[in-house]
């Protein structure tokens, strides 16, 4: 599992680095693109297999954000229809959004900007 995690995360970063170096896309384009690709792979049923194959190697990537959005939204739809889709979509990825907001607020209050 360690080797798979290392190789998978490494290869995704390698591909993204090659795209970043050879096109005019910014890191913002790449991370958004990887998130969308994560959602598409989840749609195709591949991302679950990737997680069981590479473990943390697949979940540390930003693509996992798209995967969590898709799978939580779909689970919500199956549970309680279209309202469940809207209310459940941020369920499992909420941990990333909420923690990033809370931590960055606290640290911004405590620390000063450096050049």
């Amino acid at each position, binding site marked *: *599992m*360690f080797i798979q*995690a*290392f*190789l*998978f*995360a*490494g*290869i*995704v*970063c*390698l591909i*993204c*680095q*090659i795209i*970043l*170096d050879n096109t005019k896309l910014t*890191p*913002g384009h*790449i*991370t*958004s693109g990887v*998130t*969308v690709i994560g*959602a*598409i792979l*989840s*749609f195709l049923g591949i991302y679950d297999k990737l*997680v069981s194959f590479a*473990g*943390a*190697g697949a*979940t*540390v*990537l*930003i693509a*996992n*954000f*798209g995967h969590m*959005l*898709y799978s939580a*939204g*779909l689970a919500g739809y199956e549970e309680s229809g279209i309202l469940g*889709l809207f209310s459940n*979509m*941020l369920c*499992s990825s909420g*941990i*990333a959004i909420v*923690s*990033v907001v809370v*931590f*960055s*607020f606290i*640290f*911004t209050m405590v*620390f*000063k*900007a*450096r050049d």
Partner: protein
Amino acid sequence: MNKKEYQELVKELSPKEPKLRNAIVAFLIGGSIGFIGEAIILFLMKSFGLSRVDSYAWLAFILILFASFMTAIGKFDNWVTKAKCGLIIPTTGFAHSVQSAALDYKKDGLVTGIGANVFKLAGSVILFGIVSAFFLILIKVALYG
């Protein structure tokens, strides 16, 4: 000197990115994050008896805490310039973009500075993630019921 000559001169003089080296560094750093993540997962499962799914959530939490803190004390920016995609593509890049936007706009005040700009960079990830997931779910439901 006409425009074309000038552009050629700029192209010649601007420093060349060491593409191969960048790619190898991104591979090693990104891979290491996956490797360390797997180690943290095993540690959490063994010592706290968490399920694998819960451990993934804690891992995201730990990575975000780490990246936010390192950005706040000013270390992470240098690391990102060196490792590039190795640190941008994992969740650390998401935390880094939010934290650095918040720090950069702190001088503009709480609401107009931090509040208005905190998702300046990470907003596109959230927007396109949610929109694409939404439409993919609609497609899935329409196709397979």
